[in-house]
């Protein structure tokens, strides 16, 4: 249910669940060499375990619950952020949603299809971009990959041409079409990958860390394109990211996952509220001055003429900026978003405090 979050207002009607998860679980058996000694190997993430074997060959078998009972619905046309620290279970969820992995428990439905049972049928309805690896053919020119997709997905000629043209234009690919994929930069490859995922007009697009490792300009290009895609074509987008700015600029709704459980489902503002997260204002002054004291902001650090001020992420930066500009000799100024790890850490602190 999408109503569990603090700010569920824009989570949409649960009736039209285009992507539906119901108590989905994924349990992995992990074997590793025991370190010997009585108390060894009680790994943090292990919740159940069995020992077997003797001596040097002793291995411990752990059950890792990578995804531990997750339920949510995403209506058609929504753009949702799916965030969490490393190893939280984000990629595992995406892999189950694409049918790569079979869930150990619970129910899953994407566009009315059970992904793990009808993987190849689902493939025509979804597009997937993995930030860390390419779905393109590494040694071949970009255009060859696209041509192969064209025939593999049986995309009608006219539609293929139109989609390719559109992607080439919006993602700036014209110069890159004849370049082998392995020679592309990370940002170029990512754009190439996004185009490849959209040639067959998928109703759903999964993006796993689409901006990881990209420079500022590439990030902006990718975000613009995604915003456009969602607005114009109504493509449903689920994106995992480390970068809260991605969420800020693209998604009205955000889900937070950690240790395989859904911690939060709602708007970004609500997340900041719960996490009591703070944004940081980095202020460059003309000269070294004592820390700026202003109501609603907390001096964090001073380094020569540069000062860091923290203020609640739910507040606007504008009045603060205006006052600093009025009272201090300001040279430059920038705002930094809180990082996901900090927000989540604070959510934990809050929970244990209750």
């Amino acid at each position, binding site marked *: 249910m999408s109503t569990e979050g603090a700010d569920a207002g824009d989570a949409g009607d649960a009736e039209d669940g285009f992507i539906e998860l119901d108590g989905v679980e994924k349990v*992995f058996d992990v074997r590793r060499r025991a370190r010997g000694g009585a108390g060894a190997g009680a790994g943090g993430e292990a919740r159940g375990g069995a020992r077997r074997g003797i001596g040097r060959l002793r291995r411990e078998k752990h059950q890792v619950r990578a995804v531990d009972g997750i339920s949510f619905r995403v209506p058609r046309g929504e753009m949702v952020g799916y965030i969490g620290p490393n190893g939280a279970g984000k990629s595992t969820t995406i892999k189950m949603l*694409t049918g790569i992995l079979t869930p150990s428990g619970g129910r899953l439905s994407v566009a009315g299809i059970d992904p793990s049972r009808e993987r*190849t049928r689902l*493939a025509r309805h979804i597009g997937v971009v*993995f930030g860390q*690896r*390419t779905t393109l053919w590494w040694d071949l020119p970009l255009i060859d990959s696209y041509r*192969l997709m064209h025939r593999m997905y049986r995309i009608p000629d006219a539609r293929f041409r139109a989609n390719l043209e559109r992607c080439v234009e919006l993602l700036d690919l014209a110069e890159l079409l004849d370049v082998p994929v392995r020679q592309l930069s990370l940002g170029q490859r990512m754009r190439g990958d996004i185009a490849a995922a959209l040639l067959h007009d998928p109703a759903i697009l999964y993006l796993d860390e689409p901006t990881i490792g990209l420079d500022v300009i590439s990030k902006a290009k990718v975000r613009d394109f995604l915003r456009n895609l969602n607005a114009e074509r109504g493509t449903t987008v689920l994106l995992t990211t480390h970068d809260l700015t991605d969420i800020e600029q693209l998604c009205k709704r955000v889900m937070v996952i950690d240790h395989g459980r859904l911690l939060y489902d709602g708007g970004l503002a609500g997340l900041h509220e719960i996490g009591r997260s703070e944004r940081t204002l980095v202020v460059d002054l003309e000269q070294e001055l004592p820390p700026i004291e202003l109501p609603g902001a907390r001096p964090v650090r001073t380094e020569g003429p540069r000062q860091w001020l923290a203020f609640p992420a739910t507040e606007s930066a504008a009045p603060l900026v205006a006052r600093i500009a009025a009272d201090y000799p300001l040279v430059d100024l920038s705002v930094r978003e809180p990082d996901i790890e900090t927000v989540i850490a604070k959510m934990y602190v809050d929970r244990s405090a209750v």
Partner: protein
Amino acid sequence: MESRAEGASAETSADLPERWIPRSSRRAAVRDGLRAYGLIVAMWVRSTMTYRASFVMTALGNFAVTAFDFVTILLMFAHVDSLGGYALPEIAFLYGTSATAFGLADLLLGPMGRLGSRVRDGTLDTLLLRPVPVLAQVAADRFALRRVGRLGQGVLVLVYSLAALDLDWTPVRVLMLPMMVISGAVIFGAVFVAGAAFQFWAQDASEVQNSFTYGGQTLLQYPPTVFSKDLVRGVTFVVPLAFVNWMPALYVLGREDPLGLPDAVAFLPPLVAVVCCALAGLAWRAGLRAYRSTGS
């Protein structure tokens, strides 16, 4: 270009769940797989042909390297008149049939050996995202046309042996030839697939597979009489490589089977090939299922 009538039936077949596959849709899956295989192979061949000179060089290199095996045999025959009771043309016949059958399988399914590394580095996932069978994609992955070099030298030796052999070419013997080469290629192909399936569990298992494929074809280039009976039994009943050429070739050459099996065994290769394919297919599906439940 593509589209039209073909699409309709494939669409309905794709509607059915993957785990329980009725025969009609299994046939459609095979057709889809072959189509995808053809598409990917065609793309790699086109890409290879953009560097024609490089292709010719590597194919010749492939030819030369594999031909060394036969040169070794020729050198041996400079000192002896027979090997295990077999004269040079007979050995050449064994060599030619084994190398041709293996060359075909290696050309068409050789890339399967790389599955383990794809599992290890996670790139197998991207193949699972596409609407075509994974087996076809793995089999066609980086299709290496240069392997025609190996096939070429096998065919060459086979042609030589046919010219040099002094046999009474009855119709049965003549028909035996394509039968054994095709069945042999299919048996080797099944070993490639089964070996790849094993790599879902053990990612470094390609060496084990190589000992059966590359090792097996070298074994089959020599007459069974030079090996111990246990080994011959092993490749007859356990990994049925003996049906690639030994069993039918002994019949063609009019030789005694060292295991004393009846003559009819010579006609079994097609049957053995079909059984091998079925087993390899089961292994592949079990492997893929295991991968999808463990993700590693």
